[in-house]
């Protein structure tokens, strides 16, 4: 039901959709993401359940205008009144940033920090984008597919193939 609303009010925003086992999923481009969040917030989707990401290292970056990239940032919303759930996926390329949702949803604060920590996706405008689960100098981002399962000797910081904090040291 919400998807019809989105189609009516933000035509062309939804680039892909599917409905698997009753889970409604829409894929939107980064450019139309913030208007979509405003719309969802107005339509009663005021419970941001979860933010996470999925790494698809083989997926090519932006093919022929269609939104694509290495990562999918995945948002789960819940409408408390109608108990409707909606999954929104935003593809972003490696090194690309996402707009923060901390202004709308306080719960986004730590979830975004976790996504930054484990995937290395930065969130523009986040008030305190520091690592959440690993320590500040941790080399690489653990949930990227190219991060070795055994941790790649993080204490010596040698032999790790993943980039070291995107080439910059953590501040503070």
């Amino acid at each position, binding site marked *: 039901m919400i998807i019809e609303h989105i189609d009516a009010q933000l035509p062309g925003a939804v680039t892909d959709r599917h409905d*698997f*086992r009753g*889970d409604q*999923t829409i894929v939107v481009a980064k450019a139309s993401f913030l208007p979509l969040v405003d719309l969802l917030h107005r339509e009663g989707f*005021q*419970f*941001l*359940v*979860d933010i*996470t990401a*999925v*790494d698809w290292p083989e997926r090519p970056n932006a093919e022929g205008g269609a939104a694509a990239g290495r990562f999918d940032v*995945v948002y*789960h919303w819940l409408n*408390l009144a109608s*108990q409707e*759930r909606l*999954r929104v996926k935003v593809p972003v390329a490696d090194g690309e940033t996402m707009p923060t949702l901390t202004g709308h*949803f*306080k*719960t986004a*604060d*730590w*979830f975004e920090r*976790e996504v930054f920590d*484990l995937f290395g996706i930065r969130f523009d405008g986040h008030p305190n984008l520091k*690592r*959440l*689960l*690993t*320590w500040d100098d941790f080399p690489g981002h*653990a*949930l990227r597919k190219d*991060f070795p*399962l055994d*941790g790649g000797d993080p204490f010596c910081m040698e032999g790790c193939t993943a980039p070291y904090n995107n080439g910059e040291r953590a501040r503070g």
Partner: protein
Amino acid sequence: MDSIALSRQQLDGDHMIVNLGPSHPTTHGTLRIILELEGETILKATPEMGYLHRGVEKLGENLSYQQFIPLTDRLNYCSSIMNNVGYTCAVEKLLGIEIPKRAQQIRVLVSELARIADHIVCVGVNAVDIGAFTAFLYLFKQRETVYDLFEMAAGQRLHTSFTRIGGLFRDLPEGFVPLCERFLVECEASVDECERLLTHNPIWHDRTKGIGAISAEDAVNYGYTGPCLRAAGVPQDLRKAQPYLGYETYDFDIPVGTTGDVFDRYLVRIEEMRQSLRIIRQVLDRLEPGPVNVDDPKIALPSKEKVYTRMESLIHHFKLIMHGMEMPVGEVYSATEAANGELGFYIVSDGGKNPYRIRVRPPCLPIFSSFHDQVKGCLIADAVAVLGAMNIIAGELDR
């Protein structure tokens, strides 16, 4: 002779930095909170976590669907069976199968037992932290019985790994139901006793009322779920709102608080224990005989008896262990109402033996993220009360 501490104090004016944790009797697992104090008033609380980060999600990408079940035990280790149930429900949703009636009923039964055990730990330990030791003792006797029941059913007290994809590890053993019946009577009495000790206790009131109060809007905005959200006045319980495992057929109520403070959270948890006892009573009344695993050799392992005697079953066993299940390509998010709130599993499958991505949405992470707002302007002693009432379980928080 300027010590570092002194110069630090001079820099901050009258502010003092105090570490609560990582190893502290009231931190409920290994987590650290850096408190900035002025006198005894908290100006700023900075939680630092990750001490128990084991990389469960990364490990899950490298284990088969069945092999992930023992890892779910270690999420919320006070009620591990509920994590087992939540995870297997998610995989069953991905597979699109429904488990037999008896398996559903037993899952509800053990989930509610686990909910009682979890609330006992939360209420009891919260009371101990604040200084009321006696309630803890009365309640913990019942928790022992719950763990005895788990030991009978799963062979393990804490890390149960009781569920399997498509059903259960095994059926309930003989003697389980009589002990459970006795537990229902004794636990009811213990909850009453605990209420007599705490609910009208003026010291308990002084320590808990108005502490950690939160409005319903803020609670939703922070992503609160479970007893903490209901204490703030939002009647959201997935067992009623989005029923699973046949919860819609049971008769029970959702207790709701008004102010969301520590006292309301305590009352909600106490009432939820009573409601769980009600559900267990109904399950025991309607428990019907039947299989506890789906009748599909491509999902559930055949019984050992058949594996040793029949060629076909042996092949199925070999195929399941070596190649795993045939998973559809797709993604699901499945949430269950765990003791702390909405425990969600988001599984992305590329059709392989292992999940492509498995995400655990822990209920206490969003709740804990509000800690600074909850304790700002309070005393250190209040921070301890709030921390206990949030029921932070570090195993689930850090994953």
